[in-house]
């Protein structure tokens, strides 16, 4: 299993975010992260555009409007607006795709 964690443990001794699958374009944070923080994700640096609360997701790359948001290596929703890298990815910019993925 892939599971890429941040290299530097967070203040509480916890890792700061997790990327579950290498195909994912979002990471889940495991402690509150602040706007303007710069995170090293793989080979690139990502600057957070907003505060990201614990349990929430931020984008690892730009997701154009209408493209899929990928977590667990699977589509979890579709971007309703263009989402830049480092932005908070949640209900305000992602729609559910449940009917699409429920087919065999």
């Amino acid at each position: 299993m892939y599971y890429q964690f941040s290299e530097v443990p967070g203040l509480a001794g916890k890792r700061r975010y997790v990327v579950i699958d290498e195909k994912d374009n979002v990471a889940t944070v495991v402690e509150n992260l602040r706007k303007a923080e710069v995170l090293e994700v793989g080979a690139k640096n990502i600057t957070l555009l907003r505060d990201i609360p614990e349990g929430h997701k931020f984008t690892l790359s730009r997701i154009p409007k209408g493209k899929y948001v990928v977590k667990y290596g699977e589509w979890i929703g579709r971007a309703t607006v263009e989402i830049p890298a480092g932005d908070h990815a949640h209900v305000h910019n992602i729609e559910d795709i449940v009917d699409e993925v429920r087919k065999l």
Partner: protein
Amino acid sequence: MGYRRPHGQAGVRNYVAVVPTVLCSVPIARSIAEATHVNVFPHEGGCGQVGSEKEHTLRVLEGVVSHPNVGAVLTVGLNCEQIDATRLAEAAKDKPTRHIRIHDVGGNGKAVRRGVELVGELKMEILGMKRTRIGVEELTIATQCGSSDTGSGIASNPAVGAMSDELIELGGAVIIGETGSLYGAAGLMARRAATKEIGDEIIAMTDRLENYYKRMGHSLREGNPTPGNIAGGLTTLVEKSLGGVRKGGTTTIRGTLGPGERIMGKGLWVMNTSHGIGSCAAADMLASGAQILAYTTGGGNPIGSPLAPVVKITATKKTVDRLEDIIDFDASPVLLGDETVEECGNRILEEIVAVAGGKLVQAEKTGYTVFAIGNVAL
């Protein structure tokens, strides 16, 4: 190490089960069980039910009396109920059983006194049963989650999934249920099925549940993800479902089961637990013959079952620290990045083997159990 039952099944406990045949006899069954410190199975069915609901109640109760963790059975009836007490007793096969009817013995007080005597006899009859060697491949593990948080989807559920993969590799079986939770991942699960028919049924069982809500003018989607899920960072129903189904691991799905239906094979099985959540879904999956329930919980759900040890697993360190008498297993090293998912899955399997060998889970130590039979079985 477990108990070998007459028909070859392997149990991990040797419970005396006090089973009311009908909701009317529940208080008497409860009094008998409390006085004798044995397990009771309260429910609200057994009379006034029709069709699939009636069959479902009977199927779950048959699953209880024939369960490999149950060594002896006392059924407690009224006398005028719908449940066929003879059929129920027959399901216990060669186990020691007794039956009382409140009308026959002359009322509540006499029924409790007689029940206590009969449980005493049953205890004596199974006293000599010794634990014997059973193989890990004889285990069927039911999986469930509740009071979920972020750590459930990204750490404890995948860790249980790694356990599932390992157990199946060793020849065991795993059940994943909770139809409402499967809904958003039904397509993904269907594509993992061994045959197209199994895949079609996975989608169909979730359709039946959604149609049930539609007939009432509602949708499963209204409540999902919940406000708490959204506040916690879950964005879509698909995301929630994908996190949930990770408990089943990554192997091919071998078949589907109806609510409470007996499992007859190895590998990964999907049970339609229908409308039932929480203890109802747990009862359905355990009634299939699963000997242990692996239960992931972020916030710390207190569930325990009178039918099987429930191993409660959390990846949330705060929950481990605060809810000592609820949590059995600390999967937080995965969330902290100190342990891989596979290593944690391996530890969970070791814990399950220890529990199978007699190690008590928190719910057994504290005696808090929940049992309920869902009244909708689609």
